[in-house]
């Protein structure tokens, strides 16, 4: 891996599913891990939010010398400051989790960033194999441990799937001593959020899976499969109109569009 690539990993404050306590977010931790693997020297880890947040020390404890904070108030919008920061940085690869564990948790941030920066977005990355000559070979995580290899040109944004390597243990000492670089940026209030009403989430009803498996291997497959709606279809040779129709039909069928 040429050490020249500038990698930025974006991290947020996670939330432990059992205790509800702040923690290093699963996927963001993996984003830092992947960044460390690509190049420890030219990795910048960035958090937009409270610079006093103790969880930042847990990320730093993965062996980071420093961590950049774009200070934002609790009602701040991370998007504009991140766009600003990335525009002015030499970032070539930006890694994020698929979605945050707290806050809106919409999973939209990487898409909005990609849109505003005009960069490609690579969703659910399991691994970045090589980066050379301005392009990266990336493995996407598909259900059931399948992988798809794609080539994407730099710069790009990638979200890191749970299939990527687990975040390394965080060590107390280095985390404590890491340098927090708090940049001087304006806190942008998220006006839209101010109008929202927030209530505790309830677990979503799960689609019933009727398992018709006959053998143990089939049952295993059914039990471990990521929930995929019905039978998927890969359309390669059809026209764009046909593909669009297929998507539209599916949305109707799933009652997303009525």
């Amino acid at each position, binding site marked *: 891996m040429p050490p020249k690539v500038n990698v930025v990993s974006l991290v947020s404050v996670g939330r*432990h599913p*059992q*205790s509800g*306590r702040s*923690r290093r977010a699963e996927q963001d931790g993996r984003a830092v891990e992947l960044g460390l693997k690509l190049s420890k020297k030219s990795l910048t880890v960035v958090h937009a939010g409270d610079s006093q947040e103790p969880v930042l020390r847990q990320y730093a*404890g*993965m*062996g980071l010398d420093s961590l950049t904070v774009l200070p934002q108030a609790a009602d701040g919008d991370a998007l504009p400051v991140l766009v600003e920061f990335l525009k002015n940085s030499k970032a070539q690869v930006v890694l994020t989790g698929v979605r945050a564990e707290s806050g809106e948790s919409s999973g939209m941030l990487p898409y909005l960033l990609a849109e505003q920066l005009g960069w490609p977005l690579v969703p659910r990355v399991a691994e970045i194999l090589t980066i050379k000559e301005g392009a990266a070979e990336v493995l996407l995580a598909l259900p059931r441990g399948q992988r798809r290899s794609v080539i994407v040109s730099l710069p790009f944004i990638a979200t890191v799937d749970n299939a990527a390597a687990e975040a*390394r*243990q*965080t*060590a*107390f*000492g*280095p985390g*404590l*001593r890491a340098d927090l670089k708090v940049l001087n940026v304006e806190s942008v209030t998220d006006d839209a959020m101010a109008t929202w009403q927030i209530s505790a989430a309830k677990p979503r009803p799960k689609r019933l899976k009727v398992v018709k498996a006959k053998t143990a291997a089939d049952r295993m497959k059914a039990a471990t499969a990521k929930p995929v709606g019905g039978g998927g279809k890969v359309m390669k040779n059809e026209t764009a109109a046909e593909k669009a129709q297929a998507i539209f039909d599916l949305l109707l069928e799933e009652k997303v569009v009525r």
Partner: protein
Amino acid sequence: MILDWLPPTLIGVLLVLAGIGAIRRMNLWRAGQAEKVDFLAGLFAMPKRYLHDLHHVVERDKYMSRTHVATGGGFVLAMVLVVFVHLFGVKNEILAWALLAALVLMFCGALFVYKRRMNPPSRLSKGPWMRLPKSLLTFSITFFVLTLPAAGILPEGTGGWILTLVLSVLILMSLSEMLFGMTWGGPMKHAFAGALHLAFHRRPERFGGGRSTGLKPAALGEASHGVAKPTDFKWNQLLGFDACVQCGRCEAVCPAFAAGQPLNPKKLIQDMVVGFAGGTDKKYAGSAYPGVEVGNAKGAPDQIITNGLISSDTLWSCTTCRACVEECPMMIEHVDAIVDMRRFLTLEKGETPNKGAQVLENIIATDNPNGYSPASRTHWAADQNLNLMKDVKQADVLFWVSDGAFDMRSQRILRAFVKLMKAANIDVAILGDEELDSGDVARRLGDDAAFQSLAKRNLATLSKYSFKTIVTTDPHAFHCLKNEYGDFGSDALKGVEVLHHTTFLNRLVKEERLQLDTFKGGKVTYHDPCYLGRYNGEYEAPRELLASLGIDVAEMERSGYRSRCCGGGGGAPITDIPGERRIADMRMEDVVSTGAEMVAVGCQQCTAMLEGVVEPRPVVKDIAEILVSQLAEEVNS
């Protein structure tokens, strides 16, 4: 006589060389970290510590204790007299006769050392240690002959210059061992370092029958945490390592060594010496770490220990059972050293092996090692009708439930204990969801930051309520509460008696507050949990409880202070370093060899480990469970 000057000169020169060696050695120790020691009190207490405390341990091997008194006592006395008679040339027949007597005593002792070395058990180191009895014998014979003229037994000048020359050669040989070797790293080093180690021991509370088993808190927020290099140890820890006599008693009792995991406490201490003195382990002549060849370890005072001196697996194999510390005649503190080095691996390197990282992360995020919802901590007691401290604010007894609350097997023990307390009408309350993990596992895994955070938060909770006694069924939590929470400047446990449930129940039985029927099952043996026995000295209460049921405990060969660990302590099941056998299996073999049908324990961790042994095997039950099944039903209920 032309050569008369030779023996005194040799003695003088070797004494000076020994003095130089002593200063060099002390400088090696002084490279360690500062630690406050009461030097004068220590030095004054040293003879008593030697005669009383050290010998108390040596006494367990009667053969060796007598041998050592004769040899060591004889030598010290003889050496002092040699200085007067032969170096300063004091002409006094009484002194000379006293010297002869001391030498005879030493000679007799040395004969027994020699005998032991004819067919030494594997735990003893060989190499230079094999030559020691010969040096001892040479010393005593040589000076005996040399002193005969002074005592008036032989006329001056007997044997002429030839005898003088021969004696001089022998003096050189034996004194090289006894004086030069003492301070330049020979086997006799143990006498020099050992004496000072006794004087400047880091846990002086251990002398005079005391107990000091709580780990010392790590200083947090420094430039580094834990021990990375030999010089990160306190200076008196380094001195302690140097005191090792390589007797291998620690090796003989170490469960990890017996299980074929890569740990041998004796070798570990020797490697620490290699580390702070610099060099390799090529000269080490004892048993290796199982599965690791001797000769490849290199160390230096400022070299990271786990980079080439010892492998981190060695450190993670330890169950912190303290068997080695209990057995060590030199009162060396192996567990302190091991946890000190683990602290570096966890707090600085983030290299806690296997499930360690996850367990620590869970502890930090949920206050329990398995990451259960903290709000489910009291689910086990849904049908127990127990008061919560939050509601009642005070009670006679606070029942510290421990993380057993989350485990179905341990819950049976908890319920049994609650039933017994109810039968005795105890005014008891629990903390409920306010209770957090005691921090035991985090601390033994080297994460003192997590431990201290838990300890401080637990203490803050405890300080809100008033109670006279705190009782727990978990010896690990018991140890933390009793011996380790005191370091954090809280008054929460001031004047509070911390008890293990067996001690508490034993009192109830003695006060006749529990009516128990005689036990009619088969043979029963008892397994002493390390954290109850060696850590807290409670060997009697569990046995008395069993006796109160009419049970005549069929003791295992290794019981009481020599109990063998179940393998569950120190986070060992979490780090899970592979060996040839499982420690729990070996302990179950100990149980089986007594012919018992049931093994009584006093710890949920021991229960889990011993029950994990494949059946058929004896039944494993906590003492609370055994008592509960013998609880006499009240006649009118």
